[in-house]
């Protein structure tokens, strides 16, 4: 049994039907609803103060947005690569340049929403990806499929299905936010808004992949969906928490962040194309590694 057994038609069928089953079974719908609730809550948290400002005065509204969003954005970017590397003066300037790019050169309101979304994304993605395999392994429902298609098609097909549902959920979320900001706030050009939201959407889609792949691995290893969800959330949450707490006692522990894409995921909104490319390739490399580990286990395990 190997990757040579992968068939495009089977991947398509498995991804489509697994998504359909997830939606009909409720977990897919729950995921979309949670994504929307989380995303719209974040958007509301960022946009509400701006709406209040708008009511008071339309003048200098852009400057007000930037000044309000700056602490949030700087903190979010500071939690990325540069802050986790042992302190060097250059890193702080780099963060400032990065913050200036997302706040001054791009719609600041959208940047703030995107950065908070990217921080919460790994936890959100887990809600849609934890049950890729574990539930059907537990119920032995996979056995019906195994006599019709190879394990590789089931494993990768389900990964693709979750990635597609996740991307659709994000399109729905970003679409709602962009339309609201565009029609309600009236401070940005539509071209700037659409361009930056498209870039943000692509970033979110790419950043989601390694976390979905991590859930594929965990879900292929643990038969209970609840345990799979719990372990996924704990692993994803533990890495940045351990890195954050650990670096205060021993600085190299900051590198624990790189066990998952936490250390590079913000790079997808970086002003330099090279950083964006490296960040994207990094996310794809994490995805490949987690999928490799997950499939290696799945192809040998008893089902």
């Amino acid at each position, binding site marked *: *049994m190997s990757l040579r057994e992968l068939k495009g038609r089977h991947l398509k069928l498995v991804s489509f039907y697994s998504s359909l089953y997830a939606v009909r*079974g409720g977990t897919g719908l729950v995921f979309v609803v949670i994504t929307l609730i989380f995303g719209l809550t974040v958007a509301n948290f960022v946009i509400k103060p701006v709406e209040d400002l708008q009511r008071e005065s339309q003048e200098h509204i852009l400057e007000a947005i930037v000044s309000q969003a700056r602490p949030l954005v700087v903190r979010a970017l500071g939690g990325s690569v540069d802050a986790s590397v042992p302190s060097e003066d250059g890193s702080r300037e780099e963060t400032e340049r990065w913050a200036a790019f997302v706040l001054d050169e791009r719609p600041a309101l959208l940047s703030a929403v995107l950065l908070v979304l990217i921080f919460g994304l790994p936890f959100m993605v887990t809600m849609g990806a934890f049950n890729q395999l574990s539930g059907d392994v537990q*119920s*032995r*429902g996979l056995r019906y499929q195994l*006599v*019709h298609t190879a394990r590789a098609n089931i494993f990768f097909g389900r990964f693709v299905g979750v990635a597609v549902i996740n991307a659709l959920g994000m399109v729905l979320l970003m679409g709602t936010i962009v339309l609201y900001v565009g029609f309600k706030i009236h401070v940005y050009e539509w071209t700037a808004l659409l361009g930056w939201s498209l870039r943000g959407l692509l970033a979110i889609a790419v950043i989601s992949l390694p976390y979905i792949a991590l859930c594929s691995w965990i879900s292929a290893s643990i038969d209970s969906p609840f345990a799979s969800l719990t372990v996924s959330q704990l692993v994803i949450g533990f890495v940045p928490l351990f890195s954050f707490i650990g670096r205060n006692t021993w600085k190299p522990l900051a590198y624990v962040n790189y066990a998952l894409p936490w250390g590079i995921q913000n790079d997808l909104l970086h002003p330099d194309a090279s950083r964006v490319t490296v960040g994207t390739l990094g996310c794809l490399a994490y995805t490949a590694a987690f999928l490799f580990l997950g499939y290696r286990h799945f192809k040998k395990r*008893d089902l």
Partner: protein
Amino acid sequence: MKALRVSGVTKSFGRIKALDDVSFDVPSQSIFGLLGPNGAGKTTLFSIAADFIKPDAGSIEALGTDVRQLSRLHGRLGILPQDALFQPNVPIIEQLVFFRLLDGRTRGVAEQEVAHTLEKVGLGEYHKRGVHSLSHGMVQRLGIAQAFLGEPELILLDEPTSGLDPQNARQIRDLIRDLRTRATIVISSHNLMEVQDLCDHVAILDEGKLVTAGSMADITRSGRELDLQLSRDLTDAERGTIEALEIVSGLRGAGPGRYTVSLNLTGEAASSDEAVKTVLRTLLDMDVTPRRVSEGNSLEAHFLKLTAK
């Protein structure tokens, strides 16, 4: 060609040895019964045969292909796994159509085939229902429908009639009989009457080990006994006459007018027939009418003897 070849299969779950060096062949175009008490290893063997689980040692070939290369058998192998659940909220027709699409059928052909198969198992009118609204018996029939879908050359049915009422069980048995001309069917069942009725070959497992395997005729005849229901009880002299026959090794009463004659055979079928004739001829000469004659043990008696602790 052997439809299924089991060679030295061993499988343990922790310290429990579920299968211990099991080997036997399933002839093509046969209905093969796999018997054994609970925990004998039947379901484990089925699961290895469908590559659901991996053996610790040994191998299984289905239709000449090692089952570890299961993808080469897709569409040629049907299986009813035990305790496997369907998606609860998806219409059953959609679930079965999905399997046929994976087998390479177009949607139109797949839908036609599925509708036809559902009709055969009596679920035609429920095709749009989800599994959650079906009874246990209906779900069992749905499992059988998915195993029969298309034209599999080898079908493995793990307890196909468990949970079915007598009418439905009979319907399924008839379906299995209909399929025997174009498929090899392996059945595991606790219903020994059913297995004896349906199967032409059988293997018996006990505590993970193969106890016996062979044709149903050989297995049930291997007791080399003749059960007789006679028109009257035998006198002592008549008993002596029977016991004096060269091909008789023993005679014992089994109730009013009922006797069990142990035959002393060399093993060839011809001599077995000859022995039966000799016993019956002797009885008729003594003016005793045999009202019912059955050769060998029932499968149940044989099974109980082989698996007795």
